[in-house]
Every structure is written in C-alpha cells, then in structure tokens.
C-alpha cells in the first residue's frame, strides 16, 4: 500500500520530474557559462552553418531558428530540427556544461574585481554573440530584427514605468515615440543631410556619428515636453482620465505630423543617416535598461509603487506624490522618445501612420505579455513578442488572430503576465553558481 501511494504523486508530476532531471546537470552553470556555449554555437553557425543547411536540403541558413521554413515548407521540418540540434542545442548545452567550473571561477574572479567591470564583460560577450549571430544570416534580416527587438525592449520598459510601476494606464506612448522619432530625424537631417541649412558643406559627415547621441537625447527631451502636456491636466485626478487624455494626445501627435508639410505630411520623412547600427542600438538599450533598473530599485523609484498602492499613505509618509508622478512620466517619455529616434534611424524612414493604434496595441501587448512592475518581464515580453511576430509572418493576416489569442491565453493563465513583480538583481544574475540547494534557497527567500 505504502509503495503505491508514494508512487502516485511521482507519476502525476512525471513531466515536471523529467524537466527537473533535464535541468539538474545545468543548475550550477552560471550566466557566463551559457554565454560561452552560445558563443561557440554562433561561431559554428558562422563557419559551417551554410554548408550544413545546404547538405540538409535548405536554401540557406534558417534566418530565425527555422520558424519561417517550418511554416512555409513543412517538408523541411525534420532537417530544420536537425539543424537546430546540431548548431544550437548540442553546442550550447555541451559547452555550457563542460565550461561550468571554469565559468564559475571566472565569474567569481570578475565579481571580486568590480561589479561594473563584470557587467561590462558580460554585456561585451552578449554583444559578440549577437554580432556573430547577425552576421551569419544571409542578409541584413537578422541585424534588423535584433535592432528592432532591442528598441522594443526600451519602449516596453519605459511604458512599464508608467503602467506598471506607477499604476496609471497611459496610451500616449506611440505619441512619445513619434515625437522622439521626428525630433531626432529633423535634427540629423537639418544638421547633416540637408545642405540648404547646414549639411555636409558646413558640418563634416565624419562628425555625424558623434552627434547621434545628441540627436537622440534631443528627441527624448521633445517627447518629455509632450509628456508635460499630458501630465498637467491629467495628474490632478486619478484613474481613467489619464487613459483618455493620453489616447487623445496620441491622436493629436499623429494628425499633427500628418498635416505639417515641413515634416513631409502623411508621406513621412526619409533619408536619415545610417548611424543606428547594431552596436549603437545595443549600447543605448543597455544604458536604458541599466538606468531604469537603477531608478525603480531606489527608494525614490519605489515611491512610485507607494503612490500606486496608496497615494494618501505615500503623501503622509513625506513622499511628494505629485513630483514623483511627474518625474516618472517625463522619464518614461524620454526613453520612449530616445527609442523612437533610434527606430527612425534604423528604418531610415518614418511616417505618421507608424505611430497609431496598431503601434499602441503592440506596445501594450508586449508589456502585459511580459508582466507589469518588472524589468525582466519587459525584456521577456518584448523579445518573445518580436520573435513571435516575425516567426508568424508567413501566416500573413492570420498572424493578427494568433498573437491576440496568445495574449488572451497568457492573461487567463497568468493574469499579471509572464514575470511580473520581479526585481532584476544584476549581481544575483551574474554571480557564480555553487550548488543546487543554495540557488533554490535564494529563490524562496525573495
């Protein structure tokens, strides 16, 4: 009897048990180890990916983990899986597992030196991985997807400051992105492209890339100015008013740019200089995540949570609630504007139609998919939404049935999103991992 009863729960969770068994050998692989594995995998793809793909009967290296091939040519599914296994899964797992002791030692050494140094090394490795991965593709497709995903992370994160951390429902993000995109574009076009004003004759083109940060910051500041327009009337009250006013603001910005002929009207603005390469976008995204994460983890940033959960109590505990909300709103708008500036220089073309309801729906979906009040949630949300959106592209219009369905499913099973209310502790993430018990303990104590 005893044997049977003890068997039952084990059988029930056999799937979870299997997963745990698979996970167990990798429990003490630190982030650095995973980076090593991935680096080897992308190098292998760069060197032999094309030959392998050819040998397996594919037209070229599968550009996005084979999603596109699976949907377009189902006959190639087995070879796609084989490709993924040989190029990604096996190298990553084997190298991660084998290098774990070395990676742990290195991670510990790096942490002993300085936290920021360790972070920079990790980010450098991550960039290297992305760079090699992007270069292995047949065309610029991978670079473009990576850059747009990184920009989505910035946009989602900045919206999370308002909708998640501050708990207001703002719909004005496309407006801020548009202001930033147009602001930065006008800046770079007037300064470096349009020779009727300054242009190449006056400002040497070599100076351009160094002025790019200035253009982006200018775009961000213009978006912040726009945020003041929304904030002043709507922060006197709470609740639905901000949602309505911010939605109105979004349409105002859109029709403003549609009707201003100097900005190209509905035709849009084109010909932005090609400065937003993968390195620039990566650095800006990293800075954005770093600063926003710093802010929301400080007591000044936590004041946002206090205002959201009980404004009267926050006020009575010396928190200047009005200034707190205003700061956060302008701060979020600034990053949305900066991301907009990057976006304009990645596509090298903007038009007002890009910043409408569809854009709003996408941003909100990324945010709620990933989870409110969580930096890591925003990153997960933006990345998974972008990958999904690209992967389902062959389905054309049906994509817009499947993605909303997925969002609905997430809302049903995890109403707060995939990873809500989690703090991103960078030190915790990059530290060496000693034993399984310790890690579990760390998870439960938080």
């Amino acid at each position, binding site marked *: 009897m005893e044997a049977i009863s003890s068997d039952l729960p084990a059988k029930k969770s056999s799937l979870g048990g299997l997963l745990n068994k698979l996970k167990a050998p990798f429990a003490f692989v630190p982030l650095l180890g995973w980076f090593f594995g991935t680096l080897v995998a992308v190098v292998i793809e760069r060197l032999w990916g094309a030959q392998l793909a050819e040998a397996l009967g594919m037209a070229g290296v599968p550009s996005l983990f084979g999603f596109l091939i699976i949907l377009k040519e189902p006959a190639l599914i087995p070879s796609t899986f084989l490709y993924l296994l040989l190029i990604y899964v096996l190298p990553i797992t084997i190298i991660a597992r084998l290098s774990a002791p070395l990676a742990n030692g290195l991670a510990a050494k790096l942490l002993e030196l300085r936290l920021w140094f360790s972070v920079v090394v990790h980010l450098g490795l991550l960039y290297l991985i992305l760079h090699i991965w992007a270069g292995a593709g047949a065309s610029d497709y991978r670079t473009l997807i990576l850059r747009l995903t990184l920009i989505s992370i910035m946009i989602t994160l900045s919206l999370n400051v308002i909708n998640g951390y501050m708990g207001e429902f703002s719909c004005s993000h496309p407006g801020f992105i548009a202001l930033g995109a147009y602001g930065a574009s006008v800046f770079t076009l007037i300064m470096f492209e349009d020779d009727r004003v300054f242009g190449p004759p006056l400002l040497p083109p070599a100076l351009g890339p160094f002025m790019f940060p200035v253009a982006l910051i200018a775009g961000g500041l213009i978006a912040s100015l726009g945020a003041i327009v929304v904030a002043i009337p709507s922060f006197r009250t709470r609740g639905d008013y901000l949602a309505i006013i911010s939605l109105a603001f979004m349409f105002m910005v859109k029709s403003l740019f549609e009707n201003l002929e100097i900005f190209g009207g509905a035709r849009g603005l084109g010909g932005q200089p090609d400065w937003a390469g993968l390195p620039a976008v990566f650095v800006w995204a990293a800075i954005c995540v770093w*600063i926003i994460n*710093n*802010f929301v983890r*400080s*007591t*000044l*940033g*936590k*004041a946002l*949570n*206090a205002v*959201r*959960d*009980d404004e*009267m*109590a*926050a*006020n*009575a*505990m*010396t*928190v*200047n*609630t009005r200034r707190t909300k205003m*700061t956060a709103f302008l701060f979020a708008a600034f990053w949305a504007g900066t991301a907009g500036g990057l976006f304009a220089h990645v596509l090298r073309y903007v038009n007002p139609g890009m910043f409408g309801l569809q854009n709003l729906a996408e941003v909100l979906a990324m945010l709620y998919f990933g989870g409110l*009040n969580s930096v890591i949630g925003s990153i997960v949300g933006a990345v998974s939404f972008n990958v999904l959106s690209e992967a389902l592209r062959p389905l054309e219009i049906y994509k817009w049935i499947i993605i909303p369905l997925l969002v609905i499913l997430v809302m049903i099973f995890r109403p707060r999103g995939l990873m809500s*209310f989690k703090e991103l502790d960078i030190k915790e993430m990059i530290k060496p991992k000693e034993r399984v018990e310790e890690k579990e303990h760390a998870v439960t*104590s*938080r």
Partner: protein
Amino acid sequence: MPLLHVKDMTHYFGGLRAVHNYNLNIEPGQVRGLIGPNGAGKSTIFNLITGIYSPTEGEIFLDGDNIVGLHPYQVAAMGLGRTFQNLKLWRHMTVLEHVKMAHYSKINYGLIGAFFGTPKRNREEAEIEARAFELLELMDIPHLAHQLVTNLPYGAQRRVEMARALATEPKILFLDEPTAGMNPEELIKMMTVFRRVHQEFGLAIFLIEHRMKVVMEFCDVIQTLVFGEVIAEGTPNEIQNDAKVIDAYLGREVVA
C-alpha cells in the same frame, strides 16, 4: 508656545459643519486623547491637521510654524507622523521597503543618484536600511523584513504602520484608532509597543481611540468630541465622571 497649537479651527463639507471652533494645545511628550461617538469628526480633525483637508477657518501651528495650506508630505516632513484608521499599507511592497520609504524626505542623492547608482546613493540607501532595521527591532518584527505586507497577520500589519510612522522621525505622532479590530492578546502586545515608543522617543502622541482601557491608561488629557464640538476636556478621571460625556456616550435616562 506648545508643540502643536490649533486655534479656532472650523471646517465645512459643503453646507455641513464637520468641526466647529476646535482648539488644541499639545506639549512635547504629552499624550492626548480624542474620544467621541462615531461620526463626531475625530478623523476629520486628524485630516485637517495633517493637511489632507484645508480648514475653512482657523490656524494650526506646528513648532511655531503655520502649517495651514501645506501639502500632507510637507506637514509630515516637518515632524508630524501618523497612522490610519483602516490600515493604509502598500500591498506590493515588503515590510522593509515600507519603513525605508518613510525616510523619503531625508534622501539627498536625488535623481542623478537614482538613475546612475552613484556611491552616494548606495551609502544613503544602506544608512536608511540600517535605521529601518532599528525600528523593526523596536517593533519586534525584524524577521518579517522581506515579507510582503499582505502576507502578514493584522497585528503585525499594525506594527509595520507604526514603524513606518516612526521612520518619518516625528515630533508628534497621530494614532487613529490603533487598536481597532484587535483581539485582547494583540491589544496587550500593542499597548506594550505604545509604552515603548513613548518612553524611547519621548514623543508627543495624539490618540483617537474607542477602547476606554487604552485611553484611560495612556492619556494625560482627553477631549470629548460630539458633532464636531468639544464638549469636555480634562484628565481621564474628570472625563469619566463628566455628566455631558456620559450623556453623549450612554444616552440620558428619560424620566417619565
């Protein structure tokens, strides 16, 4: 001049007179009680003094400064801490974050520090964390520091609120029915906490309370409020034997 001085304060909600010619003087270290039937205007008086409402007429001085028209956070930063009748905790925040948050007005690192994680910010955050833990020790809840407040029992939540109010470093503490909804066991523990707070900090306390046991034990002077007017003021003994108070609370015997 007393620590807190309220002079002829009157407040109307539309046409309804909620508080009429209210006067109050609290000396440093004094414990004052405010009792009265439900709806008498006790919490309104708290909200008027702490700046949530602005009185229609009258003047309020805290440590010699006129505080009428200031925002609640300004009044709080000047040394007026408070707790709320129905707990007002931040449900997604941990106990430690609550107490740290109440140090908000003492933070000097500014937005630059918050954005870039400067050494100054780390130093200040460590300082307020240490001070927060001192207060949690005082309330006997340091072991709950990393719990979300919603997971705590009622008595512990009251302690968190008290620790949070003390973290604003008040000169005078307003307690709005701090023992409401407590069982006898929690009540005894809470009274120990009051005693400790009063002795440790020598704080002046202004207390709204329905439990006569608590009021009688702690207060030096008690005011009785009925329909927004003070009908009696005196020591616990005087109040207990005041005919008008007995009328208001117990009703008059009708002689047929």
